[in-house]
């Protein structure tokens, strides 16, 4: 502080300065001015228990899956879903709602709409109960309706559960149970509905939401110290669903060694490594060890892996005299011979009349959009599903791997 000038500028010489006796009175609000928004944000995000803050975090009091008001409104407006109607009244001009089966629906936040009324919000135990109902009684139950409809209903109602969680600033252990079931459901759906027409099921939308839920779940594991009995399962599902993602791998590598060395996570890491090393033979072999849900998580990448094998082999075996037995190739791809031949055809790979594959680097072509139907190649997963019910799949705790 040694650069002091001797000349002092008196206050009155400053441009526009108020005269000595009239200091501007600014209250705290004015002082904070434009910076207020920033400060409030920081305040809100902080969870220090301060008096005025406790009053601003909404706390739900609704003890039913659907708030009473909403049920009345939707009943009056004839906006009940048939899963929510009182049995026997479905054909009526205005069906009646069944309070034990009605579930709060998702509604877009809108200006002027108060989504924080406690009577409309469900507290954590009710939310968990709701999720269990949706899984056990809707998703897993036999239905006269196609599963695409079941999915759409459950997806929407789960979204409303998420909304309640966010509005009430739920965090940590309260969320984990709900998020785990939701993630399992969406992963299963991504496999079961694969190949359905776009108007009935959009894989991209499923993916966007699945990634959000998964990301939130993994954050919960990080911020609240355990025990998290299912963490191994979900870290490995994340690795498989996001095959090849450097970001997911880096995140996993930074987990504690004890966790990283659990069988499911190790296997998922090996599979990712095989992908990065471009060794589809190894990848497909390792994939055999996955359980059903893990295979569902991985399945959308399997087409790419199989194509990759054909691409790499097209180059590695490229010669006029190449004769590679179709059966051998089928074994490597874990497909039957006819599906293998079909896959080859889609990629421009020639299969001669003696069932020998003639690889040629010039011949391989990327199959056009929509020519490969993943659903046809689902055998790796479907074989594992055998005796499992939907309820097993979504409600299970840690499933053991096939060795």
């Amino acid at each position: 502080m040694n650069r002091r000038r001797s000349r002092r500028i008196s206050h009155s010489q400053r441009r526009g300065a108020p005269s000595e006796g009239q200091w501007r009175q600014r209250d705290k609000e004015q002082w904070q001015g434009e910076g207020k928004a920033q400060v409030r944000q920081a305040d809100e995000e902080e969870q220090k228990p301060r008096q005025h803050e406790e009053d601003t975090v909404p706390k739900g009091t609704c003890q039913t899956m659907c708030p009473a008001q909403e049920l009345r409104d939707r009943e009056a407006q004839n906006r009940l879903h048939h899963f929510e109607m009182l049995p026997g009244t479905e054909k009526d001009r205005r069906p009646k709602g069944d309070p034990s089966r009605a579930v709060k629906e998702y509604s877009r936040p809108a200006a002027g709409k108060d989504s924080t009324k406690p009577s409309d919000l469900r507290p954590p135990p009710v939310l968990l109960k709701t999720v269990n109902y949706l899984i056990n009684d809707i998703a897993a139950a036999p239905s006269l309706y196609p599963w695409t409809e079941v999915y759409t209903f459950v997806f929407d109602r789960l979204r409303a559960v998420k909304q309640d969680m966010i509005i009430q600033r739920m965090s940590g252990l309260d969320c984990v149970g709900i998020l785990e079931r939701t993630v399992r459901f969406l992963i299963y759906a991504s496999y079961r509905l694969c190949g359905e027409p776009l108007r009935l099921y959009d894989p991209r939308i499923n993916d966007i939401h699945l990634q959000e839920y998964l990301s939130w779940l993994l954050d919960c594991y990080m911020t609240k110290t355990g025990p998290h009995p299912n963490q191994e399962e979900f870290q490995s599902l994340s690795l498989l669903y996001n095959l090849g993602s450097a970001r997911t791998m880096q995140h996993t590598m930074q987990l504690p060694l004890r966790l990283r060395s659990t069988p499911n996570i190790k296997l998922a890491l090996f599979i990712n490594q095989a992908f990065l090393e471009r060794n589809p033979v190894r990848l497909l072999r390792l994939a055999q060890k996955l359980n059903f849900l893990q295979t569902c998580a991985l399945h959308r990448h399997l087409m790419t892996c199989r194509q990759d094998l054909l691409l790499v082999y097209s180059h590695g075996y490229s010669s006029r005299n190449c004769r590679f037995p179709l059966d051998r190739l089928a074994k490597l791809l874990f497909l039957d011979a006819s599906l293998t031949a079909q896959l080859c055809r889609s990629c421009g790979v020639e299969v001669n009349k003696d069932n020998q594959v003639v690889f040629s680097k010039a011949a391989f072509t990327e199959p056009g959009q929509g020519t490969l139907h993943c659903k046809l190649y689902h055998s790796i997963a479907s074989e594992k599903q055998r005796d499992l019910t939907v309820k097993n799949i979504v409600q299970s705790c840690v499933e053991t791997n096939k060795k």
Partner: protein
Amino acid sequence: RRVLDVVKEDVYEAIDNREGSFCAELLSFKHPHVANPRLQLASPEDKCQQVLEPPYDEMVAAHLRCTYAVANHDFVEAYKFQTLVAFQSHKEENWALPVMFAVTLDLRIFANNAEQQLQKKGKGQPSEMLEKAAEQLMSCFRVCASDNRAGIEDSKKWGMMFLSNQLFKIYFKINKLHLCKPLIRAIDSSNLKNDYSPAQKVTYKYYVGRKAMFDSDFKLAEEFLSYAFDHCHRSSQKNKRMILIYLLPVKMLLGHMPTHQLLRKYDLMQFSDVTKAVSEGNLLLLNEALSKHETFFIRCGIFLILEKLKIITYRNLFKKVYLLLRTHQLPLEAFLVALRMMKVEDVDIDEVQCILANLIYMGHIKGYISHQHQKLVVSKQNPFPPLSSVS
């Protein structure tokens, strides 16, 4: 009371005389004034308003409240107030750029500390505070980037590289590298890009080089990281070492192994076993070396890249087989035997074929596999092209 008046008047004069660097010191936490308990006030607003015009009254008041918070080790509060200082810091002309630099630097540091504090209490989402700091820095960046006044000397565009570097640090920390792209694009299209200070350019190239590594663009990564290493000041041993940590794996992937002297000079002996394993084609040693120094490699974020060296190691091993057998028609069994000698037990003939096919596809081997004859047939000319010429 007197100390406060002195500081305020110094700030006032610095602003009046447009002394950017001096003003920056008075608002920076690197400067010793922050340790003075007579400045650590909980409510200095009135005193500031008496002397200073907006926005400086708010800035200085927030700064003083910040010193109070830091003295109490409450970094969450400190971050809050630093936000206010930073918010005002880009409103001035470009003489105040040093102020913005000092303030945003402290903002990032406080965000870091605040996050650690919150994590210890089990509160808040991970990366929350750093993301908010990044948003603020980004708005400062936009203000600078859109400064379109005529005279280049007066332009706030000079602040762009410093802010980019701060943002890179955050994005790398929170593992959101894709957010670096718009910054890189903005700097790349700016006509100032070669005229920033050497220190800023080294930092910039370091991060862009690391991003290129992440994107598997190794030629580009080598270019940037080499620049950073060569131009990094001789006396910054620590920085040179940091750059080398990333430059080494890239160079190894391109076939250039570091010398022992280099590794010893920069205290990076963790790489020595890796280097040896790769050049010898010794997969066993490579796996051992990677697992021995796993913690270090993971912490630096290079573990996954080093795994890519496996392919190079296979290539080196198979080249040895070729040199030993001295024929252009190599039985596949031979490769399997070589792998077994390296104690690689879990690879069978199918996988050997896949590995070879991949090496051919990548251009590391010139030839083809004959399934009927169970042989790898290689070109008579240069079947194993030098690594630097591939990829």
